[in-house]
């Protein structure tokens, strides 16, 4: 297993380099260093001199990938790509284009993102599995039919609708909770988390419940379930002990890979609920053309995704003894 993991870690390096190259290409196709300078300096009274100075101070006065005016290895190293990437791969994220330490910001913002995403993940997973099991239990009945219909409807609705709807009902009409914001203390924060967590769970309910129900129904038709029933186990015991355990393997595929991404936070949710997390950090950076932050967040996102895939493989092996990692 260790050999397998080492191999996966080595595979990750070209993937991360590739993602970094694509990020560079995409970003600089849309924004030139001059655009970035203008965005930072403001649009009024910006002189060509000021733009040149900003680019020089921030290391954007070099060619992107290849410096034809340099000699030897400097042709590659004296470029924006090299200068900005090498430190990042050593996890030295440096400062954003407005001068703030990115690592510090990430540390500060990770907490609020996790405060929303972890409850959504844990409570959501529990609820989705419980509901899916319930529908499987009542399969073929009107309850199952309407449950599936509601799931299909729910998955067709945009997250925006849930956000605005929840804010309207819970905070505007019934005045139960603050419409947005974040608390001063952990205790105070709880009341700000209820709404985004609720929205997060509801937004994921439709697709997840429907998918998990399919997994359960697939397992229910198998021989070992018939055997369990024949042995006289109640339907609850069959579902809870046998079907759930075996259906967990496909569920893990989608779930474990999402665990590292919880750090990244929710882009829309954080913006609408005023959660000072990493999701809103990324959105702000894109809007402000802060390439330093964008590339770091893309790098962390891809790194976490790779970690998620590795964790998925590991969890397979742990959940199913038939799976061996070689």
């Amino acid at each position, binding site marked *: 297993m260790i050999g397998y993991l080492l191999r996966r870690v080595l595979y990750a390096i070209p993937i991360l380099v590739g993602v970094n190259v694509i990020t560079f290409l995409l970003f600089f196709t849309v924004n030139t260093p001059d655009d970035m300078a*203008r965005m930072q300096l403001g649009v009024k009274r910006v002189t060509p001199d000021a733009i040149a*100075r900003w680019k020089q101070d921030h290391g954007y006065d070099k060619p992107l990938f290849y410096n034809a005016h340099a000699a030897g290895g400097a042709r590659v190293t004296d470029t924006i790509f090299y200068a900005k990437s090498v430190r990042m791969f050593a996890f030295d994220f440096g400062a954003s284009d407005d001068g*703030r330490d990115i690592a510090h910001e990430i540390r500060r913002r990770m907490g609020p993102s996790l405060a929303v995403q972890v409850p959504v993940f844990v409570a959501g997973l529990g609820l989705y599995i419980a509901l899916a099991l319930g529908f499987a239990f009542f399969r073929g009945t009107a309850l199952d039919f309407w449950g599936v219909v509601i799931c299909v409807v729910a998955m067709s609705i945009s997250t925006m609708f849930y956000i605005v709807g929840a804010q309207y009902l819970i905070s505007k009409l019934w005045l139960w909770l603050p419409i947005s914001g974040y608390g001063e203390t952990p205790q105070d924060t709880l009341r700000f988390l209820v709404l985004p967590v609720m929205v997060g769970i509801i937004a994921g309910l439709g697709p997840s419940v429907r998918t998990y129900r399919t997994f359960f129904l697939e397992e229910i038709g198998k021989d070992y379930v018939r055997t369990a029933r024949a042995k006289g186990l*109640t339907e*609850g015991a069959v579902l809870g002990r046998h079907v759930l355990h075996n259906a967990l393997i496909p569920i893990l595929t989608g779930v474990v890979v999402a665990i590292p991404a919880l750090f990244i936070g929710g882009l829309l949710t954080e913006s609408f*609920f005023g959660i000072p997390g990493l999701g*809103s950090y990324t959105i702000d950076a894109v809007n402000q053309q802060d390439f330093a932050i964008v590339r770091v967040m893309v790098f962390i996102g891809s790194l976490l995704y790779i970690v998620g895939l590795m964790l998925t493989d590991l969890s397979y092996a742990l959940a199913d003894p038939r799976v061996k990692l070689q």
Partner: protein
Amino acid sequence: MNPHARRAAAALFTALLAGAAGCGSPWNNPYPADASGGNVLYYAFNERPKHLDPVQSYNENEIQFTAQIYEPPLQYHYLKRPYELIPATAERLPEARYLDARGKALGAGAPSSAIAYTVYEIHIRPGIYYQPHPAFARDAQGRAVYQDLAPADIRDRHELRDFPLTGTRELKAADYVYEIKRLARPGLHSPVLGLMSDYIVGLGDYAKTLQQAAARQKAAGRGGAWLDLAQYPLEGAEVVDDYTYRVKIKGQYPQFLYWLAMPFFAPVPPEAERFFAQPGMEENNLSLDWYPVGTGPYMLTRNDPNRVMVLDRNPNFRDERYPDSGEPGDEAAGLLADAGKRLPLADRVVFTLEKEGIPYWNKFLQGYYDGSGIASDNFDQAVQLDSRGQAQITDAMRKQGIALSTAVATSTVYMGFNMLDPVVGGGPDEASRARARKLRQAISIAVDFEEQISIFRNGRGIAAQGPLPPGIFGYREGEAGINPVVYTWDAQAGAPRRRPISDAKKLMVEAGYPGGVDSRNGQPLVLHLDVTARNSEDKSVLEWMQRQFAKIDIQLEPRPTDYNRFQDKVLKGNAQIFWWGWNADYPDPENFMFLLYGPQSKVATQGENAANYRNPEVDRLFEQMKDMPNSPARQEVIDRMTGILREDAPWLWGLHPKDYALYHAWVHNVKPNKIANNTLKYKRVDPVLRDQMRRAWNRPVLWPLAAAAVLLALFAGLGMRTWRRHESGTAREAA
């Protein structure tokens, strides 16, 4: 559960809910419960500020903080209109002293051509002190406590409050000079360095000197070390004595006084810069760019731009009083009720980050923000137009005690013609320029900005008659102020009336485009509009614009693009017609007229003349007008310039936006001031009324909770029953 226990539980639940609803802080209160009742102003900001260093901050989302903290020598009178400069930390408004090229003093009546330099001597008031700050902290022996820290002493300090000792010191003239020098400091990117280098004697060279000094430091391995600007004299900014400094300007630039009311010219204590320049500070995000140090009414005590920014009253703020005079009508409006009271009137200002409009608006309605703008989505809920077209607050808002404040912004939004374009700008010969001029005039008549304001801005704006917005010297009201190329005066209505479309069509014929067809080659006239269209509303505006051009048979092809590409096109002169706008830096016609000054051409000099308009007569008049004091003679020059510009029509003059703002009944001394930014010190709040209203407006509605509990119990009971039946059932139906 037996019936008695069930009844007891129900009673307990009801009592809990009723208790929660009836007492304590409202459930939806976004602020800590112990914050209620304070003399605090609550506002929102929608974008985190990038810079809080006065030498760099220029955007509205930055200056709303820095203007409360830093005090330049001058400021604008809060109530008087037209806008009037008054002293802030200065003893009095500085007077210009003119010198010839040899440095010899000239009299006040000296001709402009003889004036080589202007000197302003600024006297600041003694006894003004900085806010408490660790950079000033001294021990019992008078030694600075935090000025020579080792990196290890800084490693665990990430906030300013991690330096428990603070101190202060008196404001000195040298601090103002230091800030002027900082405009040129390497690593800081002041947006006004280019402009000020044209005026302040020696500033351009000073920037080069400092760059060389910084390079020498870097070569010596001391790249991050503090560069003490006091070691590098600047000819254009000198200290005369502790309370006097002198600024030397090239030629005449009377608008310089307006710049002296901006944070770019606020004092910065060198010890604060030195404090933040210590190794390890920047790595911990401790910088002057993030922790401002000023003498103003407020100091930034919490800087969490991801969530909340808190300004607290500066305990060392000088004795400044609320104005005792204003415009006629101010007294009746209650704006002089606090005359003579010591400023600031509020103890604290809390700004909460609110990126989205829906939460912002609803929190305002719930009383959690003291003021709010009005988004298009909420306009009908907040404002209705009366029979005369005047904006009135709706009954629902009035019932809540909300007041509407409106003001025409000192801004202009226009559509520019690229004068380098052969079709709309004309060629090198007079005949083609005349054709293009008539075409532009025809379009000016056809594009009905009154309609645009009505449809897309809910009436929030006035159609522009020229480059100057109301509130700026030179703007003319009524019949004298109309643009005769586009309007006639309707004496009955007492308002301008747009010329009929037949006039525009006639101009099209004269321009050589009868029926929208180029008479020279028989091709239909197709024009291109470059815009940064982002949403569905932008699309509607573009469709509307196409219809306006179609009135005179011109095919308009919008070319929506992103902002970067758009800027690039305008910079390179590749746009044909484009949207653009300008917000006044200061209330002087020069600040608008220079947008059409030839040497400011965007393509030629990357200046602010985006239309690349060049008219020698306008340029000559501009050079004459810019140095004149506000007077009938200056008005006459402006009228002549405006007349030529209207005839030439390099812009569709567009509109001047009208800003609408809503305030709750507990906020006092609200008077829109579109130029000054340091106005929070004048605002007064009635926290008792606010608390009462918040409680009254935010009583939670409890029946849905009870209904949800009942429904949940019902479903649970039903589920359990079905489960039991399922589990105890037999495979075969009973016979």
